[in-house]
């Protein structure tokens, strides 16, 4: 049973990998960016667990800045993905402009909240 499960899992990951390698490069860049953000967020959570949550606003803004960046990047990825039929009529340029605006707001708020 366990054997078959792990074999299934192997198959699955192989299939996943092959499917994923088919994605366009610009989406892969976004994915990389998302991974980077999530990783930074995790590091901060670990750091908080060790040091304690004293400057809580700084912690919050640090983590939320990472999570926010990741979420926004995912949104962008959804919108610029050509396979996604929902956003056919949304130009990638428009999507990117929205993304930039959103990020500006996010980082402004973060700057405000950090200190």
């Amino acid at each position, binding site marked *: 049973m366990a054997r078959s499960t792990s074999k299934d899992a192997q198959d699955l990951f192989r299939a996943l990998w092959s499917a994923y390698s088919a994605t366009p490069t610009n989406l892969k860049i976004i994915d990389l960016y998302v991974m980077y953000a999530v990783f930074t967020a995790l590091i901060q959570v670990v750091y908080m667990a060790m040091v304690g949550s004293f400057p809580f606003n700084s912690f919050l803004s640090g983590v939320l800045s*990472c999570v926010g960046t990741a979420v926004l990047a995912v949104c962008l990825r959804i919108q610029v993905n050509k396979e996604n039929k929902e956003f056919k009529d949304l130009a990638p340029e428009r999507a990117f402009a929205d993304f930039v605006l959103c990020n500006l707001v996010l980082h402004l708020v973060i700057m405000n909240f950090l200190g």
Partner: protein
Amino acid sequence: MSKKLIVLFLGLVPLLCTCFSPDTPSDRRVLVLLDDFAIKSSHSIFFNNLKSRGFDLDFKLADDPTISLQRYGQYLYDALILFSPTIERFGGSIDAAAILDFVDSGHDLIVAANGNASDLIREIATECGVDFDEDSSALVIDHSGYAVSATEGDHTLIASDDFIKSDVILGSEKIKAPVLFQGIGHSLNPSNSLVLKVLSASPSAYSANPKSKLTSPPSLTGTSMSLVSVVQARNNARILISGSLSMFSNRFFRSDVQKAGSPTKHDKSGNEQFVTELSKWVFHERGHLKAVNVKHHKVGEVDEPAIYRINDDLEYSVEIYEWSGKTWEPYVANDVQVQFYMMSPYVLKTLSTDNKGYYFTAFKVPDVYGVFQFKVEYERLGYTSLSLSKQIPVRPFRHNEYERFIPAAYPYYGAAFSMMAGFFIFTAVHLYHK
């Protein structure tokens, strides 16, 4: 008589302008109400003493219909001496309520009663917290503390030396000879904090009618009975109540005194010294304090702020002076305390002094915000009570007064900035890739 009055009144006119004021608290114009003018001569030592200290005495019969304490809402006198123990009704516009109003507006009063004190005098005394023995014919009798005297074999003449222990009230010089007293005793309510027993009866004294046999236990006995008491009202008006008018008389002043059972015989009774010192206290020549120049400011600053912040360091100072009868002298003590008070004292500091009347301290505002008060509550036996309070709000930190750039938070700062940098790089890459 009436002409004399007018002259007297004209003489008083310039004085009317300088009525009792905190700057010169001593009384200057004194109304003396007498049962009959004989008292004026029989008590002349006391009166002359007052005159020599600068007081203006105005002698009137207590039932004189022209007497009045105030005219056009202004009091004509700064103090009142009631040497009229038997009066049942004052003349003119004066009654018990008028006298009490006189006291409540900050004026001083000396009341002397004796063996057959009238209800009116008793009522005034009661209103001031002194309860004379209700038996109108009772006198203070002491079979062991009486004054040995050739003329009077009576045990109602008492030589008492049980004084209050206060330099402020009785002066710094010790009264060596006992005080002769003949009159009625009174009791005080122990919970009454305003009234003080200046001359107490001895443990063997009691109050009863000396002419009749003692049928029931006397209501007033021993040291709980007071012979002479003083009252300092909350507005710092001072009242002296004595159960004996003859205590002030020339005869008692001059008389020699020997207390029964005591081998020493004094040439002169202590009455003159006792009464003089007491009258100095009553007429605010001693023990009258004032506090001025209450100042507070942050350490390193001079101006008084409208509001403090929590954890500010501040300095507080006040100047306290005592009236000496002529000038304000610096008051020296080491027990003046200031409270920083909001519902309960958060800071309680004893003030340091430079012995020139200047008291100061420095402390840190507690870590609590709210509306605080600087409070100085100084109540010492015999002194006027000082009660200063000054309101000052204490605010929390402003939004930009909190700590910033905490080292522990640097990773977070780093993360946030790296995200911003990442955003720019990503933007560049994304656009370039297209």
